[in-house]
């Protein structure tokens, strides 16, 4: 492209014009501007409250707790999910049935009910004891509410629930790997577990990561369900404040700002993971919109003689 060999048989074509792109772009931009302006100038929204509570220490603590729970629950549930997915695809019928049952129960019942179950385990079993079932023989016994405090219960509920969903995603990722890969690994004498971790999962990652990104973001927001067992994460804190001062819209906006921020932060690792596991794949990664806009502007600057705005993005080089 930079070569200046301008012989007459060179392809120095006039790039395809896309007038509609610009019309649509302008319309979209205008629409978004109208929305933002009307939100900003709306008399029902008290901006002072928003800025007052955005960095309120209780809110910031809530953010930290939400993030902590999300990260821990996602990491642990992913490990469990891999285990369940492997069991589900294994030939062993016992494992298979167990994994199926697990997914059925944990996906099938509302998370809220699972949270209530773990949170109020003491309601059903005031003592947890280890012993021989259906007899009176017990090895030890401990008060449930001591063993499972609210935070642990919340974490447990989210993790076990998420594992069921993750298992399905990971299973589908593993199915997307070419069977030839299993054969190649087997013919090299690789063990099933080595094949799983070094051959299958890395290739499945490309398919697994985007839905797992979805799940992570859902998880972040599901932490709000922990309010039923009084874990003081972001949403619980915000509704506590708003139920006192009745500034519900403003506090929902504060929460939205934080969630948008956290979501954006969490999608950075996703982007790099996608790139990492996309290596060796012919289909090139689309750059982030920011990168695209910057490079489009740069390109526009370097083509000053062009009378109309053009787009050369179509070029594959």
């Amino acid at each position, binding site marked *: *492209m930079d*070569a200046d*060999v301008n*012989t007459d*048989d*060179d*392809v*120095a*074509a*006039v*790039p*395809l014009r896309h007038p509609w792109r610009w019309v649509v772009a302008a319309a979209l931009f205008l629409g978004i501007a109208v929305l933002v302006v009307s939100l900003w100038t709306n008399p029902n929204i008290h901006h002072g409250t928003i800025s007052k509570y955005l960095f309120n220490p209780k809110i910031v603590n809530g953010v930290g707790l939400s993030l902590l729970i999300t990260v821990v629950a996602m990491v642990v549930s992913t490990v469990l999910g891999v285990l369940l997915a492997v069991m589900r695809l294994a030939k062993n019928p016992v494992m298979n049935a167990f994994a199926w049952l697990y997914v059925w129960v944990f996906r099938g019942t509302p998370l809220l009910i699972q949270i209530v179950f773990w949170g109020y385990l003491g309601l059903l079993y005031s003592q947890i004891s280890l012993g021989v079932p259906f007899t009176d023989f017990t090895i030890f016994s401990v008060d449930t509410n001591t063993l499972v405090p609210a935070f642990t219960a919340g974490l447990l509920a989210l993790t076990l629930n998420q594992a069921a969903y993750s298992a399905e995603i990971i299973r589908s990722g593993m199915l997307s790997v070419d069977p030839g890969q299993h054969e190649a690994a087997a013919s090299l004498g690789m063990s099933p577990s080595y094949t799983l971790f070094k051959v299958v999962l890395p290739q499945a990652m490309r398919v697994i990561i985007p839905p797992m990104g979805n799940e992570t973001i859902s998880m972040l927001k599901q932490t709000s369900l922990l309010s039923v067992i009084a874990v003081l994460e972001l949403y619980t804190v915000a509704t506590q404040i708003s139920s006192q001062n009745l500034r519900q819209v403003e506090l929902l906006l504060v929460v939205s700002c934080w969630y948008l921020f956290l979501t954006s932060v969490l999608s950075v690792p996703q982007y790099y993971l996608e790139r990492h596991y996309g290596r060796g794949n012919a289909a090139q990664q689309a750059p982030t919109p920011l990168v695209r806009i910057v490079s489009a502007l740069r390109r526009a600057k370097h083509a000053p003689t062009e009378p109309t705005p053009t787009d050369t993005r*179509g*070029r*594959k*080089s």
Partner: protein
Amino acid sequence: MNGVLATPEATAPPTTQAPLLRASNVRKNYGNVQVLKGISLTVNAGEVMCLLGPSGSGKSTFLRCINHLERIDGGRISVAGELIGYTQRQGRIFEMNPREVSRQRRGIGMVFQRFNLFPHMNALENICAAPVGVKRIDKQHARKRALELLDRVGLAHVATSYPAQLSGGQQQRVAIARALAMDPQLLLFDEPTSALDPELVGDVLEVMRSLAADGMTMVVVTHEIGFARSAADKVVFMDGGVVIESGLPAEVIDNPQNPRTVSFLNSVM
């Protein structure tokens, strides 16, 4: 049999004077590496041209440029007098819109090195997909035609098998039938016989020859010197992105002038 493959378009190439395929000074870069360094060649209607050359010489890349799967960075390619991927108006060259490019590609069939059959369609569906979906040919008719084509490549009995159930050789033959189903003016083959069973290579060559007789033009990348010698009207030897030598098979294969051609042919035969 010929009736199956002969079509009005194929029998009457638009310009019999001019070559059907003309490439002049075609260049192509991948990043900073120039893979094609100015390829110029012509293929007349009804001719079979074989492209020979060592691995990495750019044969596949050139083939992909012909039907605009790759955008060229310099030079011109035209098929039947029409510039591929560009339109010329008032002395200027404009990029073509995607719909027009699709139209051009319909006239150019391609058979890939790795088959690229649609795995979710059985052999018959693979063949009918484009005629029915793109050319809007009546389903019953397309199906009948597809069965004839399958029969021609010796696979009538696997019409309802999915690609994963076919051996490599069978898959490649389905891929050829699929390309033929669009009645292209020009057929591009990227090592079509490398995965084909030797017993059936002959049959496929027979099909190709009958197509050539009906005015079908073919560009075949191959390592099968025997085929090039017997079937080609013209042989082109490429290396490092340039045409080293070209001419009649008898000239290039049996009496090569360039030392690189000589060494390549020695290693192959």
